[in-house]
C-alpha cells in the first residue's frame, strides 16, 4: 500500500501544478484585465480616467509584469496563505472569502452525507425487493428527483418552510446573525436553514446514486457465489453484507472524487436562488468582472477538491478491492 500511496502522490503533485497553470491561463484568457474593465466602465459612465493613477495601480498589483512572474507570485503566495488581492472588493481574497468557504464546506459535506444516508438503504431495499411495490415506489421517487430542476424544488421548499416553520426566506442563517461572531444561536440558525439547500442539491445526486447502487447490487446478487452461500444456509443478511454489498460499493467509492466538485459547482445556481452566502455566487461575479485572483482562488479550490477526492477514492478502492482486472497485466 505504501508503494501505491507514493506512486499516487507522485501523480497528484504534477497534476496540481498543471491545474494551477491552466487555471491561471484561463483567468488571463479574456482580453485586458480588471483595470481595463474598470476604465471601460468609467468611460461609459462619462467619468474621467486618470491614466497615471491607473498605471500606478497596474504597477501596485503587478499587472504590468510578465505572465510567468504573475503566476509565480500567485502560486507561491497560495502556499503562504496569501491568495492575492480582490480588485472588486478592494480586500485580500482571504478576507473576502471569509466565512463563505467554511459555509460552503459545511453545506457540501452535509449534502454528500445526505446523499449517502438516503441512497444507501433505499438502493439496498430496491435491489433485495426487486419489482415489489416498494421498489417501484422508490424508483418513481428517484426519477422525480432526477427530473425536478433544483431551482424549482428550492423555491417550493423555501415557500413551505416559511409557511410551516416560519424559517426566514433565503440565506444560511437568520438575517440578525449575518456578520456576527459565531455563537450557539448562530450555529443553530445555520442548522435550521441548512436542510433546505442540502435536500435541494442532494436530491438529484441521491436519485442517481440509488439507480447505480441498485443496478450493481442486483448484478452481484445474481452471481454464483451468492447462490452457493444461500444454498449452504448462510443467513440472508450475512449473505448480503459479506461480499455482494462490498463489491457493489466500488462505484460509490469511485464517485467520491467526482462528487466533491460536482456538488460544489452544482450548488452555485441553487446558492443564487436561495441567496446562500457560499462561494458559488461570488465565483460567478468574480469571473464576470475579471477579478482574477478571487476567481483563480475559487477555481484552485475546486481543483484541489477534485484531486484530493480522487486520491481518497483511489486509496479506498485499492484497499477494498485490490483485484487484477482481466486483460490488464502486471507492469513489473
Amino acid at each position: 500500500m505504501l508503494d501505491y500511496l507514493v506512486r499516487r502522490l507522485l501523480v497528484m503533485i504534477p497534476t496540481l501544478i498543471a491545474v494551477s497553470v491552466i487555471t491561471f491561463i484561463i483567468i488571463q484568457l479574456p482580453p485586458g484585465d480588471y483595470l481595463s474593465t474598470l476604465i471601460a466602465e468609467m468611460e461609459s459612465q462619462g467619468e474621467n480616467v486618470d491614466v497615471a493613477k491607473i498605471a500606478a495601480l497596474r504597477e501596485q498589483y503587478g499587472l504590468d509584469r510578465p505572465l510567468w512572474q504573475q503566476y509565480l507570485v500567485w502560486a507561491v503566495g497560495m502556499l503562504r496563505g496569501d491568495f492575492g488581492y480582490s480588485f472588486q472588493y478592494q480586500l485580500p481574497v482571504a478576507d473576502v472569502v471569509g466565512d463563505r468557504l467554511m459555509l460552503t464546506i459545511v453545506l457540501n459535506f452535509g449534502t454528500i452525507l445526505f446523499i449517502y444516508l438516503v441512497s444507501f438503504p433505499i438502493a439496498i431495499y430496491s435491489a433485495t425487493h426487486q419489482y415489489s411495490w416498494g421498489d417501484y415506489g422508490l424508483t418513481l421517487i428517484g426519477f422525480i428527483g432526477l427530473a425536478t430542476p433544483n431551482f424549482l424544488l428550492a423555491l417550493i421548499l423555501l415557500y413551505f418552510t416559511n409557511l410551516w416553520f416560519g424559517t426566514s426566506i433565503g440565506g444560511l442563517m437568520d438575517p440578525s446573525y449575518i456578520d456576527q461572531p459565531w455563537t450557539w444561536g448562530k450555529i443553530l440558525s445555520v442548522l435550521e436553514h441548512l436542510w433546505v439547500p442540502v435536500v435541494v442539491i442532494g436530491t438529484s445526486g441521491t436519485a442517481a446514486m440509488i439507480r447505480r447502487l441498485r443496478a450493481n447490487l442486483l448484478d452481484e446478487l445474481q452471481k454464483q457465489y451468492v447462490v452457493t452461500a444461500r444454498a449452504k444456509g448462510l443467513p440472508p443478511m450475512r449473505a448480503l453484507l459479506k461480499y455482494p454489498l462490498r463489491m457493489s460499493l466500488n462505484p460509490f467509492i469511485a464517485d467520491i472524487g467526482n462528487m466533491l466538485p460536482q456538488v460544489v459547482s452544482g450548488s452555485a445556481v441553487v446558492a443564487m436562488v436561495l441567496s446562500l452566502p457560499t462561494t458559488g455566487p461570488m465565483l460567478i461575479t468574480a469571473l464576470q468582472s475579471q477579478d482574477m485572483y478571487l476567481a483563480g482562488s475559487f477555481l484552485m479550490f475546486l481543483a484541489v477538491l477534485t484531486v484530493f477526492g480522487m486520491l481518497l477514492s483511489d486509496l479506498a478502492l485499492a484497499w477494498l478491492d485490490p483485484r487484477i482486472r482481466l486483460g490488464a497485466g502486471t507492469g513489473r
Partner: protein
Amino acid sequence: MTTHRYERGAIVGDYARGGLGFVITAGPVLFVPMVSWLTVMFAGFALLFGVYVVRTWMRAATEIEVDEAGIAARGPLGKAIPWNDLEAIELRYFATRRDKEGGWMQMRLRGGGAALAIESSLDGFEAVAERAAAAAARNQLALSQVTQENLKALGLLGGARASGGTASARDDRLGLE
C-alpha cells in the same frame, strides 16, 4: 533452493520516485514560509517519501530464498516462514491507472510468528507465488476472493479453499502439484 532479488530497474525507479517526491515535498518546507497546516502536510508527505526511500534500500539489500522447506528473506530485518507454518497468504494487485493496466502485485505471507511482503518486481515472482499457493493448498488455508482471483490471473489457482468453502475445493487446483 532458488534465490531471488529485486530487479535493478525497479529499484532504480523506486529510488527515483522516492527521491523526487522527497525533494518536491521537503523543499517547500525548508525554503518557503508556508501556513502551518500546509507545513505539517508537506512535512508528512516528505516523511512518507523518506520512509519509502529507506524501504527501497532495504529491499535492494534483501535476497529471497525459497526451497522445499520454506521461504526466507536474507538481509536487513531478515525473517523466515516454513511452508508448514504458513497461516495466511494474500495476493493484491495495485495500479495507478484508471484502466488498471501496468500495475504490480504484492504477496503477503504470514506464519510462524513472522510476516513477509514480496512485490512482483522480484525476479522470479511467479515461481515464488506458485510455491506459496501450493503451500497454502497443502495447509488448507482460506483464501479471500481477491487473492483467488489474482492467483487465477497468474494462472496459479491454488487448491486452498475459499473463505467458508470446504476441503473438497482442493480438487479445483489447476496443475500446481
